[in-house]
Structures are given as C-alpha cells and as structure tokens.
C-alpha cells in the first residue's frame, strides 16, 4: 500500500525492487505484507466456505465427497483463524503500534521479517496437505480444525502436513507476539505511560501475552499426535494406556484463549473507533483495560467448556461451567462501555462506526448464546450441532472479522493517504451485515432441530434453513469482491486524506499516529516525540 508513496519519497526512501519486501525490516512494509497475505487468505478461506455451502444447498451429495467436504471444512477454519484473522491483526499491530506509541520501528525488526516470511511457507504447506492425499492415495484430513484423535491418527499423510503447518504458524505467531510485547514494553515514547496508551495497544499487549502462553501447548499437542502417528507412542491411544481426551484438553487449553486472541485486537479497534465517531472519550478507559485483563485471565482457565460431553466428573464440569458463565462479566462490561461511549456523544456514522455499532449488537447476541452454551445440561443438547456453528460464527465474524474491517476503513486513509469511497463503504457494510445475519441466524434453528456439525449431507427436514443459509452465504462471499475493489480504489487514488482524517480522533487517549502525515514517511519518529500527559 505504501509502494506508490515510496516512489515519490527519495529522502530516506525505501530500497528498490523485490529486496525491499524480501529483506524488509520496516514495520510499515511488513505490516502491509501481513495485510495483503491476510486478504489473500480471506479469499482462499472464503472460497472453501462457498464450496461447503454449495454442497449444503440441497440434501443429497452433489459436488463434494464426504472426505473432501471435511477437508475443506478443516482448511476453512485453519485458514480463517491462522491465515486471515491473526495475520490481519498482526499487520495492524505492525503498522499502527509503533506509530501510536511513537517508536521508530518494532523492537526486533529482523525477527519481524522472519515471523512474516514463515507465513507463506505455512500457507503452501496447508495447500500441500490438501493435495497430498490424492497423490499418495490415502484419507484426507477429515477431522475438522480440532484434529481430534483417534480420527486424526487414522488420517493419511495430509495430516502430517497439517501438523507442520500448525507448527510453522505457531512459531510465526509466537515470534510476532514476543516482538509486539517487547515493543510495547520498551519502545513507548517518553511520557507515554501504560494508561496513556490507545486501547488497541493494550489489546495487543494482552493478545501477545496470551499467544506466548498458549501456542506452545498446541505445538506440544500436535507433536504428540505426530509421535502417535509415526513413532509408536500411545499418548492418545486407549489401547496403549493413553487417553484420547488428553488431546482435547491440550487443544482447548490453546483453543479457548485463541478465541480471545482473535477477539481482543478487534476490541482494541472498537476502543478507538467508537470514541472517534462519538466525539467523546471512552467511557471508563481504565476499567475497560482491567476487564480485558480479567478476560485474558479467565480465558486461560475455562477451556473444558468445549468438551462438556467427554464425561468429566460433576465437580470439574461445574467448575468449568461457573468459570465460563463469569466471562459474561468482563465481556458485558466491555460492550456496556462502548454503548455508554456512544451515550450523550455526538455521533456520525462513517463506515468504521457502522461496523462498530453492528459489532456491539451482534457480539452481544453471540454473548447471550454463549451463556446458553455455557450451561452444561443444555450444552449436552447443543454440543456439536449447528447451534454451536451459529454461535461461534456470530462471535468470530462480528467479534473478530468485522472489527478488522472497521480497522481497515478507519486506517486506510492513514495507510494510503487517500479517503476510501464512503458510499461504497456503506454499501459494503449493509451488504455484509445483512447477508451475514441471514446466513448464520437460521443455523441456530437447524441446530436445535437436530442437525449435527460436520456432515456432508442432511435430511430433508433441515432443508429450508440450509437453503436460506447457502444463498445468503453466497451473497456474503460476493460482498468481499466489493471490499477488495474499495481497497484497490483507495490505494490507487481518491480524495487526499489529511494527517487527521477523523475529527474526533484526538479525543480521549489518542496515539501519536495522527501526528505524522498520511501516508506516513518510510521512517517515522527517528527522534523520540514528546508526549503531553493526559489525565
């Protein structure tokens, strides 16, 4: 995105040619690469979702055989979680955190380069995992992204590639997190205390810490899986004295905090967007930070609510239920803060703000269905049905993905120096939001009516809602072509953006990103800026 800019900027300009990107240690270039990678993955993951929905359009098997269906299902999740949301959030962190805290670059620029360039290899490995079963003639990765044994031990060579993909993605995330945490702790401009940081920086500080804590556990879990598959161990094989449920504990010890890894950066974006367009400081900045900390801490100790049905003891299950229900306190408080930031504000509704309002409503909905799912006896009915599918898409699409879209629209002027087309932005907002709701709202009902997850074919009794879901999913998918068009159009040109394109952006706890030009020069803050302390 800053390519065009760079060509005009010969003073302290960037290196020329492909080397600029391959060997880049510049946080803005690496951020751009992260964002482009995420955009490519968004379309890849989206394409697999479209194929899944096309298969589910009618009962009967029309286009995908069961193993290919479940393989695409697995890849859809892995691509969206590890390939799209996390790199997009990391891209925003790379771009914005040094600008916000007044740092000249990330603390560890070469590590930054490594953590990005691991990603394309992981992506390639994931694609190989899909093709390999057909070359070697064995079973595809048909487990879903949870990779539960014994099914994952049964699967063919594709599973080994998937395991290595997870390893590489894990290394990339851990390195990126270490870098971001180090940057935030050490590189803040003089005078910028922890409680002067924009909420986005706080969100990423906690996200980074979470990732550093939980990613190694996943890596360990999948490594044990690899050993079970090839080296005769029996960690997860009951016949050899192992325990299939152990893997589920290891996976979800990572997997539940991962939900907050996806969510927190978007909460950070909301923490900037809502005050900006309400023209009024964040309602309760400090308690909001504390509730993010509480969320992080609670999120680490409630993982087993993903596996209520495995037969844990009554006491243990009750503990996980109470812990999970308590999560509604910090999350409820966050949403409350955003609503009361709008309250008595002076609101305008540019695209980022529209997304923010929609997120508050739809994420609240995911929250209340989350409490329904947290209640153990009821979950024994909901578990592994489309009700769960609907719930977590409501949590992750508004909670994570729409938050990132809000971020993209909020910062596009800063990144490119051009305003995006507001009218197209608004069309994109309404198109995605309506089609998203029409896709996933009906799935609550098909789940309650008894439709299990991860099935390639279903009974005629589930037909109507699946039909609605599929048609809306196609509209939802298609809306992203408009998204792509808006981004390209904004990079190419458009109305010039000022240094501070949003007039409310300086209110509350703004970062220093608005003190540099739009787009920023290749190198920023070579001299530490002075920060005036805010109360």
């Amino acid at each position, binding site marked *: 995105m800053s390519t065009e800019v760079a060509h005009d900027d010969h003073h302290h300009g960037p290196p020329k040619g492909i080397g600029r990107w391959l060997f880049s240690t510049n946080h803005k270039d690496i951020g751009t690469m992260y964002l482009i990678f995420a955009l490519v993955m968004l379309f890849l993951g989206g394409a697999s979702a479209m194929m899944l929905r096309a298969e589910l359009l009618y009962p009967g098997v029309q286009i995908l055989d069961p193993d290919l269906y479940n393989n695409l299902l697995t890849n859809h999740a892995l691509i969206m979680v590890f390939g799209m949301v996390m790199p997009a959030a990391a891209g925003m962190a790379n771009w914005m955190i040094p600008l916000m805290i007044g740092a000249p670059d990330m603390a560890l620029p070469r590590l930054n380069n490594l953590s990005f360039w691991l990603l394309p290899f992981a992506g390639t490995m994931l694609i190989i995992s899909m093709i390999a079963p057909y070359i070697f003639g064995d079973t595809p990765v048909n487990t879903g992204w949870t990779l539960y044994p014994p099914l994952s031990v*049964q699967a063919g060579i594709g599973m080994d590639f998937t395991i290595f993909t997870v390893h590489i993605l894990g290394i990339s995330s851990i390195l990126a997190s270490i870098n971001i945490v180090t940057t935030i702790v050490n590189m803040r401009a003089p005078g910028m205390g922890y409680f002067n940081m924009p909420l986005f920086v706080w969100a990423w500080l906690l996200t980074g810490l979470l990732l550093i804590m939980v990613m190694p556990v996943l890596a360990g879990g999948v490594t044990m899986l690899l050993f079970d598959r090839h080296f005769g161990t029996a960690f997860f094989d009951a016949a050899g004295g192992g325990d299939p449920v152990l893997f589920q504990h290891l996976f979800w010890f990572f997997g539940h905090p991962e939900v907050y890894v996806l969510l927190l950066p978007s909460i950070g974006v909301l923490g900037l967007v809502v005050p900006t367009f309400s023209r009024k400081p964040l309602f309760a900045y400090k308690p909001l930070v504390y509730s993010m900390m509480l969320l992080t801490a609670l999120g680490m100790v409630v993982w087993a609510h993903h596996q209520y049905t495995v037969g844990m003891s009554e006491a243990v299950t009750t503990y996980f239920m109470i812990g999970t229900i308590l999560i509604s306190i910090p999350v409820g408080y966050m949403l409350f803060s955003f609503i009361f930031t709008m309250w008595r504000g002076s609101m305008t509704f540019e695209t980022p703000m529209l997304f923010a309002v929609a997120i508050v409503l739809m994420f*609240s909905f995911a929250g209340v269905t989350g409490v329904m799912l947290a209640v153990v006896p009821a979950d024994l009915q909901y578990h592994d049905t489309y009700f769960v599918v609907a719930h977590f898409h409501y949590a992750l699409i508004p909670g994570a993905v729409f938050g990132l879209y809000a971020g993209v629209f909020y910062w596009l002027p800063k990144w490119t120096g051009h305003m995006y087309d507001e009218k197209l932005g608004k069309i994109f907002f309404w198109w995605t939001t309506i089609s998203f709701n029409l896709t996933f709202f009906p799935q609550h009902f098909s789940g309650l009516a008894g439709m299990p997850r991860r099935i*390639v074919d279903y009974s005629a009794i589930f037909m109507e809602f699946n039909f609605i879901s599929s048609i809306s999913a196609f509209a939802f998918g298609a809306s992203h072509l408009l998204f792509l068009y808006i981004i390209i159009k904004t990079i190419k040109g458009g109305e010039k953006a000022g240094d501070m394109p949003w007039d409310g952006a300086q209110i509350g706890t703004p970062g220093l990103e608005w003190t540099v030009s739009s787009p920023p020069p290749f190198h920023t803050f070579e001299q530490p800026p002075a920060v005036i302390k805010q109360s």
Partner: protein
Amino acid sequence: MLIGKRLKFLSAAGLATLASNAVAEYGLNLPEPVSPVTRDIFDLHMLTAYVATVIMIIITAVVVYALWKFRKSAGYEADQNFHVSWFGKWAWVMVPVVVLGIDLSIAGKATKTFSLVEDSSDPDITLKVTGSQWKWTYDYMDDDIRLVSNLNKDIPVTDNNYLRDVDNPVILPVNKRIRFLHTATDVLHAWWVPALAYKKDSIPGYINETWAIIEKEGTYRGQCAENCGTGHAYMPIVVKAVSEDKYASWVAEQKAEKAKAMAEATSDKAWTKDELMERGKKVYMTNCVACHQSEGQGLPPAFPALKAGPITTGPVAGHIDIVVNGSKKNPVMVAWANALNDLEMAAVITYERNAWGNDTGDVVQPADVKAAR
C-alpha cells in the same frame, strides 16, 4: 464412492415436494422431551433463551435510542464529562453486580439439573451403545441380546427420514429407568436422540453414562454428533419405544432366535453353498457394509474393495485369518472372532468369495473357521 449411487439429480418438481414435506416437519426448537432429564434440560434451555431474548431487546433498545438521540446531524453536542459523572464512576461496580446476579441465578438452576443428569443409578435396563465406523452396536446387558444398526439406504432424498432411518431400530420399553453406556471401538462418536438422550461422547477406552425414562410410546430419531470420518453423516439412530408387554415378548423372541442360531452354529451340519450365501449376505449387510459397501467396492484407500480383492480372491486361509483375527496392517479391520459365531463367519467368507463376480467357488464351513480360531 459412497455416494455415487445415491447421487440424484434433483428436478424442479422433486424440489417442490421436498420443500412442502419440509414445512410440515421443520422444527424451530429442541424436539418435545419425553424423559424427565430431557424435560428438565428443555426447561433450562427455555429459561436461558428467554433471558437471552430479554437482554437482547434491552441492549437493542438502548443502542437504537442512543443512535437516534445522540446524532451529530440532529445537532447533539457531546457531553465531554459524562465518563466522570457519578454514573461513570460507579458503572464498573453496578454492571458486574447486575451481570453476576443473572449469571448466578442461571448457574443455580443449571447445577440442580446437572445433578439429575449425572444420576444414572438403579437402572431397570442397561443398554450398552457402541459406536463404530459407521454403525451402532447395542448390547442389552441384562438379556444378552445384541443388535447392529446400520443406515437404511433405501430412503429417497426427498423423504423426511432420508439419513434418519436404520435397518434395526433399538427397541426399548416405556416407563423403565434405562441406563445407556457409551463407548466406541475406533474413533469418537456421540449417540444423540434429542427427545430422550442428551449427548455423552462415545470414546474408545471410556464408558460414559446417560439415562432416560421414556414416557411415551413412539419412534425417536437422532444422528451421530461427533465427527467420525467419511461416514459421519451416515450413522443415524432410531429408538422405538414400546409398551412393557411388547418389550418382554420382543426380548423373548430375540432370545429364542439367538438360541436357535447358537444351535445351528455349533451343529456339525455341512452347509450348502446356497445356504451359506444367503446367511452370508445378511451378516455382510449388517456388519461389513458400512466400510466395504454394498457392492463390495469399499471406500478406497482406507477401506479396500472386496470385489476382485487380493484377499477375497486369494487363498482361503488368508481370508479366514483376516476375518477371525483382524488385520495387522490396518487396525480399522478388527478381529471378528468375538462378535460373530463360526457359522456367521463361514457364511460371510463364503459370500465374499462368491458375490459381485468374485466367483471363486469356495465354500467355507464353520469347522474351517473353528480350526482357525
């Protein structure tokens, strides 16, 4: 593959009937519960659903009011000191207290229901449910009866019971306390019949317990809920709840049949090829069809074809060995020595060696299988 045969072109007319069938039966909520546990769960579900609805209405109303009232286009000036008003100062206490109150009242009700869920003591009948790729095996522990239940593949895609019907439904009596024991032989499965049996996963090496008292006669349907691979969509569950008398006579009938089968299997009779073929087909369709498929075409690569297969058309001894003792190379092919008697194994081997154009002409007698045990 698995699907090839059922792949049907859906004509416009077919779709129209599909849609009209679906309207009649389409559920919007959990099915009507017929057991005390599922009823308690249902009430809990409705409680949380109502709480959720009320909360959503309040949030939506507040947000919509704020959006309308505090617009810049309506000339509203932002109140820059709102967050330091008394409300702003104390909200961090008030909000968590309110949320905690709602949480605890839900959790209180939930723990009570959960104790009921977990109390599977003093059963009248114990039914062991074993999930395998991709069929259910039911052992009536008190009467020593075994049922194997497979997908009924003859239901057309336009029917409401498509993928929801089986060859051998589970027969259970009403008004008896039934304990279900869940386990699996290969990968994870979950036995789920929403009206009467909530989920506990079937896990190899574990035995999980659920229970029910079915209060109404009828047919209850469900599906495997935990992803178990290629055939996950194809392992439905059908429970037929009958009166206690009917159940007693069904049990007696099953026992008599079993005794007859045992007598036959242990007799020294030399069976003719036709007799063995007929019985073999039955055994095959119950036990082998899920993986090796109805025409012996298998689901390669994981589940090899038996039609013109190297073992089914190779030496007889090798074929008997893999059926009796299982495969050493591929653990998914289990040993059948405990699950089938000698006659059943002899019949199914004979069938596999002569069906689908394998035509080896070999006839395997129960004595041959006995020798290989």
